[in-house]
């Protein structure tokens, strides 16, 4: 059995240090002479006392207990776990990008502003929108920003539209964002083919419809074939169409949300544009809009002036205001821009073609072994159902855990909610046929194990640093910090 890993706090030994601070070259004034004593710290923060080698070994050991794309195949559906190019990491660390202040004079950050301006235009071209804001920090933040824009648009026309419609296959962030933007959510069912049910949509729209939020391709990996009709239904009712860009990896250069009738779009640069997920963030969720929504975009927007220089445009009286401090996750925007320039428009189209071919290949090879929820062609991802595992007393979760022993990150499971025992697989374009085949073989082996030796699957994983964890107790009796002080 592998030993438990100590907490950094447990490595502490009084007297050790890992820092190097400059000598004080100004007068050694005592804090009590400068600050009233009742505002000075009364109890020392009990941080660990370790030296530099402890720090390095501790975090190196933690990293070895973690799994990233560089460790292996990571077919997590709806997360687009593609290769995170190293050049993007290098350029984001250039001093001229990493060591600049948001309040520097505009003339001292012309390179940064040019990059942002170009990225805005590139993303507008890619999505078929008229203008883009780079402020939102993540996909959900982009959703909320987009909905606030929609709200401002309706309010500017003197309309109180209170409802946002989402399909039952939508990301959880969609209804949550609607709530935080002050809307009520109406969830409509998908039809038997996994598409928006047009009758249900027609029944749901009305004078109170603010927007329909749609992911296209959907979380089921399906392109909404009736998108033109959907757009008409929403627009005729006076609502707007919102595009959740989590799944844009399927359609770059092939179809654009702007051409499909969408009025507002967000993109997840940490998915489609290859910026690393960082173990949960940071991301970036730029939002693109059609002309009629431009006046409401968050302040400031980067603009190009008549003399060719770049500047912040704060003079936007109808703006919804700020959504994030400063100008968004600039370091992520630098990476996304570098990514776009490694491919160019034709390369990005090829990216989507390969992503979709990979997904269809996997779906076809797995179809004899796992039930495909919606047969036909898929886009960048597809959804299987693990319900036949029930016959062996197993669940989708057990397959996911068994995959860990084969050295894979499992697919997304139990989402979307409208497919029983759901398994959602997104291979991305940066995986080779050999990798896909090996994963498929592992999936086939596991279904055979499930039939002949269900306990082997039920008790997996065997090779990880910990076995299955007691999540129920963690939630019932929360231990959320080490109270080491």
């Amino acid at each position, binding site marked *: 059995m592998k030993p438990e*890993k100590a907490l*950094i706090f447990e490595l*502490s030994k009084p007297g050790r240090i*890992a820092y190097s*601070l400059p000598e004080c*070259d100004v007068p050694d*004034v005592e804090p009590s002479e400068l600050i*009233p004593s009742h505002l*000075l710290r009364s109890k*020392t*923060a009990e*941080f660990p006392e370790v030296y530099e080698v402890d*720090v390095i070994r501790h*975090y190196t050991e*933690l990293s*070895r207990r*973690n799994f*990233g794309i560089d*460790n292996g195949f990571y077919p997590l559906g709806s997360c687009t776990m593609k290769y995170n190019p190293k050049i993007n*990491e290098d350029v984001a660390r250039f*001093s*001229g990008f*990493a060591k*600049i202040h948001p309040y520097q*004079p505009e003339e001292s950050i012309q390179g940064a502003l*040019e990059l942002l301006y170009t990225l805005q235009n590139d993303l507008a071209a890619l999505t078929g929108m008229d203008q883009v804001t780079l402020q939102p920090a993540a996909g959900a933040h982009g959703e909320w920003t987009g*909905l606030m824009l929609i709200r401002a648009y309706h309010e500017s026309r003197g309309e109180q539209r209170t409802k946002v419609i989402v399909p039952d296959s939508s990301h959880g*962030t969609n*209804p*949550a964002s609607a709530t935080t933007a002050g809307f009520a959510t109406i969830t409509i069912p998908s039809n038997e083919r996994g598409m928006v049910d047009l009758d249900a949509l027609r029944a749901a729209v009305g004078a109170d419809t603010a927007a329909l939020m749609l992911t296209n391709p959907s979380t089921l990996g399906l392109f909404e074939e009736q998108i033109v009709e959907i757009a008409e239904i929403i627009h005729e009712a006076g609502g707007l169409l919102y595009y959740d860009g989590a799944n844009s990896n399927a359609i770059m250069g092939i*179809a654009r949300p702007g051409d*499909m009738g969408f009025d507002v779009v967000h993109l997840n640069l940490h998915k489609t544009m290859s910026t690393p997920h*960082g*173990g*949960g*963030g*940071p991301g970036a969720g730029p939002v693109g809009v059609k002309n009629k929504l431009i006046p409401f975009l968050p302040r400031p927007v980067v603009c190009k002036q008549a003399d060719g220089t770049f500047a912040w445009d704060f003079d936007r009286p109808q703006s919804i*205001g700020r959504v994030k*401090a*400063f100008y968004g996750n600039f*370091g*992520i925007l630098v990476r996304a821009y570098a990514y*776009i320039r*490694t*491919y*160019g428009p034709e390369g990005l189209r090829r990216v989507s073609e390969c992503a*979709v*071919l*990979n997904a*269809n290949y996997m779906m076809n090879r797995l179809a004899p072994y796992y039930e495909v929820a919606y047969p036909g062609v898929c886009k960048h991802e597809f959804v299987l159902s693990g319900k036949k595992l029930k016959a062996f007393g197993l669940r989708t979760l057990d397959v996911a855990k068994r995959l860990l022993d084969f050295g894979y990150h499992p697919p997304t499971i139990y989402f979307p909610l409208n497919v029983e025992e759901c398994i959602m697989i997104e291979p991305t374009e940066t995986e*080779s046929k050999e990798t896909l085949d090996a994963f498929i073989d592992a999936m086939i082996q596991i279904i055979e194990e499930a039939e002949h030796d269900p306990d082997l699957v039920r008790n997996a994983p065997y090779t*990880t*640093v*910990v076995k299955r*964890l007691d*999540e129920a*107790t963690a*939630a019932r009796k*929360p231990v*959320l910090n080490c109270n080491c002080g």
Partner: protein
Amino acid sequence: MMKHRYLPMTEQDQNEMLQTIGADSIGQLFADIPESVRYTGKLPMSEALDEDALLRHMSSLSNQNADFDRYTCFLGAGIYDHHIPVVINHIISRSEFYTAYTPYQPEISQGELQAIFEFQSYICELTGMAVANASMYDGATALAEAAALAGGATKRRQIIISRTVHPEAREIVKTSAHGLNMKIIEIGHSNGVTDLSELEAAMSEDTAAVLIQSPNFLGCIEDVRSIEPVVHAKGGLLVMSVNPLSLGLLESPGQLGADVAVGDAQPLGIPAALGGPTCGFFAVSEPLMRRMPGRIVGQTVDRDGKRGFVLTLQTREQHIRREKATSNICSNQALLALCASVYMSVMGKTGIQEAALLNLRKAHYAADSIRASTGGAMTLPFFSSFYNEFAVKLSDGTDVKALNARLLQAGFLGGYDLGDAYPELKGHILIAVTERRTKDEIDRFVLELEACLS
């Protein structure tokens, strides 16, 4: 067929895969997209560059920016030029961390989960609060989430916010409150700190929370011990936004009676990067635990009884609760939380105090030098105590933009123009002095200011 270093698909692969699928061409896989919405041209966007050309292009853009290596920074106002210990970049460059997704599969994510658990532990220890989450987008959005939490917890609709809170954070709180149909009242300042009598007058039975920042945007340390009873007397929540590094020296929000403590972890080893990505932190008192936004990691055991960590209390979150979630946040700023954790590990118990003390002393040396400067063009408008940042009043009619342009010529990133956000402070600048500024740099900066203003 196009070849690219990130794409493994060969012509042979493509043919074999299409054959398995039973399709003639890749185009057939897109047959479900209606003809009328297909894009057939070439997108009008930036062209591809080879690796060397891309490096040159990015260098050229980067070199057009006046960075901290070439210019001496006295700008603060929420983003600071602190020393970043070199080990941090080595650790966050380990791709097991930075190329991982959110730790949904705990058995292969123990490293990230433990790192977040330690981050939560550090934040609790530093802020004196009971519980912290795994991070927010930044300090400003964390403050907006705190206002939302207060509305939910108290069932009240009014948020009082001091004008000494960062102006951008106030803007975001306003944007967000509009979404939640909450009302915002702003309170003025006096001598650089929140006007207590104005606060008392504004408090009502509908006050969900009072939002303050200390050290505040004007650099001054708020007298929270006087504010706290005023807020709690009316049953409102006290939300404090704090500079985490200052807490090496200043009393913790927990000890001061705050119900929610938020802030931006940028001073803890995170690059300035034009203001992002940074990392918001969010900590609450015990009773508010289940109202927290965002991800939380908890300790538990595995089947063998071995200690392990998992994402927990997930029934608060959007992927479970959908429209009833406490927040819509999903992705956060995990890698920057790791930066902050490594920073706190490096600084340790004594380093965090020493760093805060250096900031305090250097800033006071700079303030004293400005106060003593000749010509009378600069005065210090407030006499409240401050930490590493302070306001300076310039002689009447000084054009701050022109002053900063001249300072830039002389190799300095000058002060923040307070007139931008505070009409009543036109002709005032805010100067930040971190531990990175040497006595020599401070002396030269003050001399340059004198020369510019004379």
